[in-house]
């Protein structure tokens, strides 16, 4: 049976190759910093289960230290200049789109396949293994169709990951921070504050506190999934459902979506908000959040209104 361990092996070898390419690049201004950073990630991927909890914690601390000292950075040149790329695009045409489409098609196909034959892949990990498989299959096909060397793919992958830099590790580190916050009881403390802040007996006040609380709490933790159990237990269940007889399906479903509005507004949701800014080489790290605010704020108001309108129909 295939599990995520196979995927981590693939990722670990890739990070090790990025570390090696950086260390071998004598002219690179961030040669040692990048090399150390990706070597640490390779160690986490390849040996994370054998390092022990403290060992993994020291890996996190070391990654943060390398990033804090500004030892990482971009540097490698693209393997083809703009004129070469334009000429290749004119020659290859829609074959390039077809190769790009292989990624989602294989990801979907593999997801369905793994659901159909649960013996192939650990069922809970199906979509993640499918995504990794799509990366491998698309890479293989592209190498054949383009008659390119695997070295070019590795060099380009390394150039892109160097451009993203330490931001690549943010999503994983934020999930870890969320776990420590849970351990320390941060969620319960926030829930208590919101429960205290609500005026007694006011339905509108309770709806407003619940919707805003979901969004703000999601912004603080970076994840609506972490905010929902706390806000639901602290405000949704005792006030909206028990005291004011609200429809539990509406309170839960639209409350979660109010939280999603918060996800659009916070750098804590790094994989959605900071990673794209890094992938697109935007000068402002928060550019995507700024663009999302104009949609997220009116949408949050709409969601709060929907709870008030739909949950208390009778």
């Amino acid at each position, binding site marked *: 049976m295939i599990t995520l361990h196979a995927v*981590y092996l693939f990722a670990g070898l890739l990070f090790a190759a990025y570390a090696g390419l950086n260390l071998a690049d004598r002219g690179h201004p961030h040669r040692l910093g990048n090399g150390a950073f990706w070597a640490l990630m390779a160690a986490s*991927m390849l040996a*994370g289960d054998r390092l*022990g909890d*403290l*060992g*993994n*914690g*020291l*890996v996190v601390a070391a990654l*943060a230290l390398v990033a804090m000292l500004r030892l990482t950075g971009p540097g490698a040149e693209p393997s083809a200049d703009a004129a070469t*790329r334009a000429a290749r695009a004119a020659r290859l045409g829609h074959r390039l789109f077809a190769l*790009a489409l292989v*990624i*989602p098609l294989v*990801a979907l196909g593999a997801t369905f396949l793994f659901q159909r034959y649960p013996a192939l892949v650990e069922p809970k990990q199906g979509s*993640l293994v*499918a*995504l990794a498989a799509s*990366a491998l299959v698309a890479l293989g096909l*592209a190498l054949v169709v383009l008659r*390119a060397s695997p070295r070019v*793919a590795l060099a380009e*992958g390394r150039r892109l990951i160097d451009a993203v830099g330490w*931001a690549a590790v*943010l*999503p994983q*580190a934020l999930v*870890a*921070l*969320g*776990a420590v916050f849970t*351990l*320390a009881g941060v969620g319960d*403390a926030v829930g208590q504050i919101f429960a205290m802040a609500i005026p007694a007996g006011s339905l509108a006040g309770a709806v407003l506190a619940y919707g805003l609380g979901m969004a703000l709490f999601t912004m603080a933790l970076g994840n609506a*999934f972490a905010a929902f159990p706390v806000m*639901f237990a602290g405000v949704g269940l005792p006030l909206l459902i028990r005291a004011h007889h609200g429809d539990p*399906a509406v309170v*839960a*479903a*639209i409350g*979660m979506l109010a939280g*999603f509005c918060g996800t659009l507004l916070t*750098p804590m949701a790094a994989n*959605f*908000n*900071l*990673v*794209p*800014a890094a992938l*697109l080489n*935007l*000068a402002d790290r928060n*550019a*995507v959040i700024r*663009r999302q605010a*104009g*949609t997220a704020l009116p*949408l949050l108001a709409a969601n709060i209104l929907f709870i008030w309108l*739909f949950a208390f129909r009778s």
Partner: protein
Amino acid sequence: MLVLLGLGVMLAGFALRWNPLAVIVLAALASGWAAGIAPLALIAALGKAFNSARYVMILWLLLPVIGLLEAYGLQEHARALIERLRGATVGRLLTGYLLIRQVSAALGLDAAAGQAQTVRPLLAPMAEAAAERQAPGLDQPARDAIKAMAAATDNVGRFFGEDIFLAVGSILLMKGVLDKAGIVLEPWQFSVWAIPSALAAFAIHGWRLRRLDRALAARGEGGA
């Protein structure tokens, strides 16, 4: 209440533009210290959670194939396609993408698109090419804003489509939390209530994209 110190560290760190990775470690140390957890136990807890969250890094496995396709002109081809389409504007392109993303996420086809697979190699260069035609001579901040809007559109479409699908993680989480409170509901009872918000998301974001087209048109005429 002292455990909220970690949230304060996060806010201060982001506001002062310290390195976010270092801020995260400091915030974990602050909240853990306030909760009375010993420093070594805290580092270990952070490491344990970090190790079990390795799955979020799978996204980066796409970079070699994306980089290879880009070296062979994928972005240039996407741009050229938009330049040939007469009526293509940023607003129309992104509104169409928003619709497809919401509908496919609602059908459970979450993996069909994403920031690394579709936004960077395809959607962002297409949007930039369309904007360049609507308002020639855009400066770098304006180009960045267009690309950021492409990334934002992917997020909005995904978030406000996926909850209509029955088997998505958030629906299962809600069902689990309500089960524990003694309220037993079926997944579809949650997912139908995601529809009004999905329509509102399309209306609000679509309206903003129309305004973006108007702003670009005004800028294009002003510059000509």
